[in-house]
């Protein structure tokens, strides 16, 4: 069994060779990612050693090469000398995720990106008198950097500047986590369907990080094959923008219908040709596909020939959200996909950690060889296992920005998975947003009250 798995990972590594740096140049961060075969089955002691070395290496890197983070550490009175053993890791100063949402516009946005970057950035040339976010990001990315951003459900994106090395790790880690948990279903000749924007036409992190999909699988179709930039997202997510927003929303609604039909055609073709298939991306599209098939009284049987990897939440389709259990049941009933081949991924633009559900219990397993997870209380102090709180992490793989982050998500972490025998920590399957402090200005008060009055039946 182990030999088979080793062979399985070897085949995957061969396909994605370009993401793996030469072994002689590996840093402790690279060892913790590329040097392990199964992220989720490393003996705890061994994983802690890898994790300690990777995180300490990155902490020293950011302390020495990032002025903003150096100042922050000085303020918190922590230096690399204070991090002597594994238990000291939690002393490392954490940056609230909101920090990466607090940026200026125009030319200052470019300078902001340069100022939060660790180390030297290449020369970036930005055209135009008043560059917008997309102009700035595209100029950075033209130099080989990968500036990507969150979908910004609230209308505010999180922007993270990655260098090529950091982004490669993220891509490799997401793909490896996915194929590890769906073992032994992966093979290069599968037909893939990406339920996300085409990674080559967007800088949205959830889409962009899927570029590796095109190398790991022989044939991939992207659901959204047009350019998706911050302006399009703003118009589709927040509803602001008047006539233009209406047009975009109308277009997106028509596009969703078209995507659903395309996916059904994809299912028909591959069912007929008996191909192995894999879907990766936003659950909404598959929900809409299976709903339509149910209405038509149709179904498929892809039992051992299909894997589904969901992630990224429901976004503008939040009103259609169903629980992960219901989702798996619907996929089994309509597409014949076994529940153990239908797993959800949890990750975020701020880090390279990809938590993925185990097929046995669907708990979210953490890649603990390079990623130190924490749950914090209301005073932002670690509270250990079995209690709900705010998710935070120390990411030992981010070279170009300090990936020591307090997220906005509420989780419960367990020391082991209650169902499977993988040794590392897990998160309970449903992750929610932590309640934030709210302040409404007078304008917001009025807006809210009128809206409530309108909605009040």
């Amino acid at each position, binding site marked *: 069994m182990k030999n088979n798995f080793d062979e399985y990972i070897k085949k995957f590594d061969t396909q994605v060779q370009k993401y793996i740096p030469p072994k002689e140049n590996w840093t402790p961060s690279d060892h913790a990612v590329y040097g392990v075969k199964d992220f989720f089955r490393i003996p705890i002691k061994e994983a802690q050693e890898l994790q300690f070395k990777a995180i300490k290496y990155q902490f020293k890197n950011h302390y020495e090469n990032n002025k*903003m*983070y150096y*100042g*922050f550490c000085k*303020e*918190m009175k922590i230096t690399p000398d204070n991090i002597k053993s594994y238990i000291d890791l939690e002393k490392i100063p*954490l*940056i*609230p995720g909101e*920090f990466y949402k*607090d*940026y*200026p*516009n*125009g*030319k200052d946005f470019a*300078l902001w990106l*340069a*100022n939060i970057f660790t180390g*030297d*950035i290449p*020369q*970036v*040339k*930005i*055209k*135009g008198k008043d560059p917008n*976010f997309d102009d700035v990001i595209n100029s950075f990315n033209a130099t080989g950097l990968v500036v990507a951003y969150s979908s910004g*459900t*609230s*209308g*505010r994106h999180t922007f993270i500047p990655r260098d090529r090395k950091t982004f490669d790790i993220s891509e490799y880690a997401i793909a490896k986590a996915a194929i590890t948990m769906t073992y032994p279903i992966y093979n290069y000749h599968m037909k893939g369907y990406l339920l996300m924007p085409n990674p080559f036409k967007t800088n949205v992190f959830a889409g962009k990080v899927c570029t590796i999909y095109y190398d790991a699988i022989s044939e991939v179709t992207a659901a959204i094959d047009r350019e998706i930039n911050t302006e399009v997202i703003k118009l589709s997510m*927040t*509803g*602001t923008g*008047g*006539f233009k927003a209406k047009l975009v929303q109308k277009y997106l609604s028509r596009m969703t219908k078209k995507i659903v039909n395309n996916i059904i055609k994809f299912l028909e073709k591959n069912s007929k040709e008996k191909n192995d298939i894999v879907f990766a991306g936003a659950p909404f599209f598959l929900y809409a596909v299976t709903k339509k098939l149910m209405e038509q009284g149709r179904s498929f049987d892809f039992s051992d020939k299909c894997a589904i990897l969901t992630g990224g939440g429901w976004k503008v389709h*939040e*009103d259609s959200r169903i629980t992960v259990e219901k989702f798996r049941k619907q996929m089994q009933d309509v597409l014949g996909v076994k529940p153990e081949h239908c797993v959800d991924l949890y990750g975020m633009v701020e880090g390279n950690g990809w938590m993925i559900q185990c097929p046995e219990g669907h708990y979210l397993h953490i890649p603990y060889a390079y990623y130190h997870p924490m749950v914090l209380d*209301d*005073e932002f102090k670690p509270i250990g296992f079995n209690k709900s709180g705010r998710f935070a992490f120390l990411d030992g793989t981010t070279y170009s920005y300090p990936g020591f982050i307090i997220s906005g998500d509420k989780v419960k972490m367990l020391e082991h998975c209650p169902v499977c025998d993988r040794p590392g920590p897990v998160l309970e399957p449903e992750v929610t*947003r932590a309640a*934030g*402090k*709210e*302040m*409404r*200005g*007078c*304008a*917001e008060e*009025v*807006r*809210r*009250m*009128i*809206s*409530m009055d*309108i*909605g009040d039946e």
Partner: protein
Amino acid sequence: MVSLREMKDKEYIPQKMYAKMFIGGAFSLSKTILFNMGELKKLRKLPPNAERYIRPKRDYEIPEFKPSMKVINSNEKYLRPTLFCDHHDPEVVAFAHKFGAFKKSDREYAETAFEFVKEHLSLEICPLDGVGVTFRRGTGTCFHLISAFIALCRAAGVKARYKVFAMNMIQAWYETTVEADPLVKKWYDSMGYFMLEGEGEAFIDGEWVVAHVGPKAERQAAAGIPITKFGEDSIGRWFFAIPGTIMRMESIPYGFSGSTKFLKKLAPGSMERVNLSILKQIKRGRKIIEDAGGVESYDRMARAEKGAKKPKLEIEKTQKIVFEE
């Protein structure tokens, strides 16, 4: 009669961004109203037995004004009277002297003015009017309050201006309430163009210092956040401005007052409910502050709870970023 030159100079003519939002909003709101006339009824009245809003009594006396009191008479930008903000109003001049105009340092004086406006003037949604009226009434929208602060500064020779922005929706509330109903979403989104938030800014020791005078301590306590101090910006702390919408202005522009009047006409019932809700927030916040042992200890607790410190970032220019115009 104000000349065109003066209109431009004093920024009575809306900035491009403001005009863009205003026109876009007018179009969007008109359409929403036109297609949802039936819903308008809900905004217009309160049920017969509903609780009514009674304006709270102001908790201060207006000091005596004497014509001999010194006041700045300048036509310099940010020191001259502008729309709804005439610092020559007797109430403003009298308060300015009470707060130590021309005696204290600019910072000390501005801090005193900030504390007074923030903690003694209450939020009430009502059409825009002059600063003298605001001091007499003791209430106003955040723009009344900002104007009161700006007028006090200008009266004492401290340059002051408006900082206006469109706020991002509060996600948690938006998801649970607004997105649940497409009609509500339409109204909410179309109002977003007009519902601007703001702060004041005073020019002290060579830099603009922000003054977030809108919420009094009780309202901030009701929201569970620390009490804003002079110089602390609401943006990035408890508000997020929609990128590209932050505007700095010498004056409230033409059209702004019209939109508040229109809103009052459109939704008088809703306005009253907002004001009632504000009074309830203040009451709730007062209790929270009392339970915490006073404003200072509440603020300490709230700041400790806020806990997660953010790094400070001073954006520096770098030769690695080249702008090619």
